[in-house]
């Protein structure tokens, strides 16, 4: 089997509560489509041959890499032998094909490996979901995160990609200035800050909402992956989920059940957790960053990394 994806690296603008347009660099899913934050979700079957064709509409080299997955990177170096990119570059105006065979199911970042301290902060990241063998999107009976025997059957799945935005840094990098020190004042889930997180999915550059809408009794799989540069402490009120996988390594196997309940989950940069809970009684349940200086928009609470689990 083979699955092809095409990405275009482009400039764009996002909107955050209380700011004007914030320039960013992101991946678009079509030649005419807008750059988006995060990039388009890629969904692929385990062991598929995946080809990602990147077209670079930016004025400098970019790349795509697949951290957490097993593959052989092709770093690019300068004349002095220093890394300039952790994976093959795509030249400005050019296109390059990246190949990967995801060997295990889970949720992974794809992101630029070229000056990632700038390009990932600017938005060149997205999520690849690798489905286990036997997964059929049309048949809910087959919906598991990691396949049979991993305890990851679910009814509703939601991906939450966390990150931070330093608007000054964005302005300066977009203007071609040297990067300022990283000092984020905006904190995002799926490219949006609260209250925009609770708006529905949409078109445009910030397409993914983060409101989790479920029915009481449903099994909910929350897949949290941190594309930011700092750790976050994801806090649930009224719900204590069970951690079923860390970094897409399931914790329950035939030999041992290492899954555990936890109310507030610390997630380092580049890490992911798959959390499972049964939707409780109808009501609204808050989910937010217990690093309370990240549950704000600039200096204002509420904001930032916060959303609602809405049970009906």
């Amino acid at each position, binding site marked *: 089997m083979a699955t092809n994806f095409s990405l275009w690296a482009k400039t764009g603008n996002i909107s955050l509560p209380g700011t004007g347009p914030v320039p960013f660099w992101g991946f678009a899913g079509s030649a005419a489509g807008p750059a988006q934050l995060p990039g388009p979700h890629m969904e692929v079957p385990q062991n598929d041959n995946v080809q990602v064709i990147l077209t670079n509409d930016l004025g400098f080299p970019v790349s795509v890499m697949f951290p957490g997955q097993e593959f052989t990177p092709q770093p690019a170096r300068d004349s002095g032998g220093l890394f300039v990119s952790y994976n093959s570059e795509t030249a400005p105006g050019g296109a390059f094909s990246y190949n990967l065979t995801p060997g295990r199911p889970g949720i992974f970042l794809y992101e630029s490996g070229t000056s990632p301290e700038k390009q990932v902060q600017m938005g060149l990241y997205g999520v690849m979901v690798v489905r286990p063998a036997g997964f059929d999107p049309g048949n809910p009976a087959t919906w598991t995160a990691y396949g049979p025997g991993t305890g990851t059957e679910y009814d509703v799945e939601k991906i939450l990609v966390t990150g931070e935005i330093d608007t000054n840094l964005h302005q300066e990098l977009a203007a071609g200035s040297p990067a300022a020190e990283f000092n984020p004042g905006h904190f995002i889930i799926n490219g949006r800050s609260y209250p925009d997180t609770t708006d529905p999915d949409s078109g445009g550059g910030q397409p993914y909402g983060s409101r989790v809408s479920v029915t009481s009794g449903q099994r909910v799989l929350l897949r949290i992956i941190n594309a930011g540069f700092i750790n976050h402490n994801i806090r649930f009120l009224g719900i204590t989920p069970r951690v079923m996988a860390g970094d897409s390594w399931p914790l329950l196997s035939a030999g041992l059940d290492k899954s*555990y309940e936890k109310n507030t989950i*610390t997630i380092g940069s580049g890490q992911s957790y798959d959390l499972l809970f049964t939707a*409780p009684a109808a009501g609204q349940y808050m989910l937010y960053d*217990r*690093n*309370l*200086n990240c549950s704000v928009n600039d200096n204002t609470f509420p904001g930032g990394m916060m959303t609602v689990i809405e049970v009906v």
Partner: protein
Amino acid sequence: MIRNINLWVTDGYISIPDGNSIYIWGYTDAAGKRAQVPGPRIVVNQGDVVNISITNTLPEATSVVFPGQSGVTADTGSGPQPAGPKYDGGGNLVSLTDFADYPGNPGGNPPTITYTFTAHRPGTFIYESGTNPHKQVQMGLYGAIIVRPSDYDPAVPAKKTAYGENTHTEFDREYLVVVSEIDPVLHQAVEQGKDYKIRDFLPRYWTMNGRSAPDTMNSDNAGYMPNQPYGAMIMAEPDEKVLIRYAGGGIENHPLHPHGNHTRIVALDGSLLKNGTEDLSYKKFTVLVGAGQTYDQVFTWSGLGYNPSNPIPTVMPNLRNLGVGDAGWTMWSGSPYLGEKGDVPVGVTSFNQVGEYHFMVHSHEEMQITNWGEFPGGMMTMIAIFPTGTLGDAGTIEGLG
């Protein structure tokens, strides 16, 4: 049982060993008292129905969230309703949960509210503000709840446990350490009614149970710290099982490193690390205490068997060839042996009592064991191992409830 707990939300001052006095907001257990940090300990039993009423005297609304509890209700006078986020007329979130308004708010909610939940699970939990928490939690509106297992019986060793009989959480002594940070500039801004700029957050003090070292090592209810009633000194005898409950009350993660031995982590956020008969507990020598999280762990120090008749295999130099008490004080006995006292240099105050051993417990982000840059200070205390039979009966943590 039904537990009725009354808290007042008010302000006060806490003392820092460098002489600074910091304005705080906090909880207290009687009308008219100044606020304390952390809030009063709440100790209840599994299965109890817990009613926590708060009376707000602050100039803004406040609330309490109970992470890890389920089915919390709130009652502002018209009967209990499921607690949940509150919005203004424009649909803007104003509080993570139902709140007590500030007194005298025209057309506002009452300044009192009662939260109710059933303590379904044993463990260590946090309670803290859910209204402007970026400010109110930093100002001191946080505390801890201990839920005893339903079969808890401190008189029966097999039932003196954190999570119930046969959960391998028996303990001889228990301690609770709630950690946090203080940015004095933000506290001063609140005191003076200036803008509260969380983006400028830059802590200068770090606390255990609301105190910075060396005050952490002082006893509970030390008279000169009326609003910081809880000491953070950990005391035990050799081979005892010491249950240490950490809670992250601040907004940063802190790596706490005990000298003397590893700890075994037995529960996270009040969830026992067991699945059926499978035990998921593990040993660590540095525990990263995440903001808003709790860690229950068991520490035991057994020593290496040295005593004057089984002497250490090295020669102790003469005192004048050693540095002792550089800070002007020492916890050392002057002897390498437990229960023995030796000489310490003239001019150095030894706080050692009966030849007990002291092992430091501290944040390994080392600037956090200073008071605004001055070592020793901050998020640091000692585990004191007393000679067998000298420490007396083990008390357990008591609190409201």
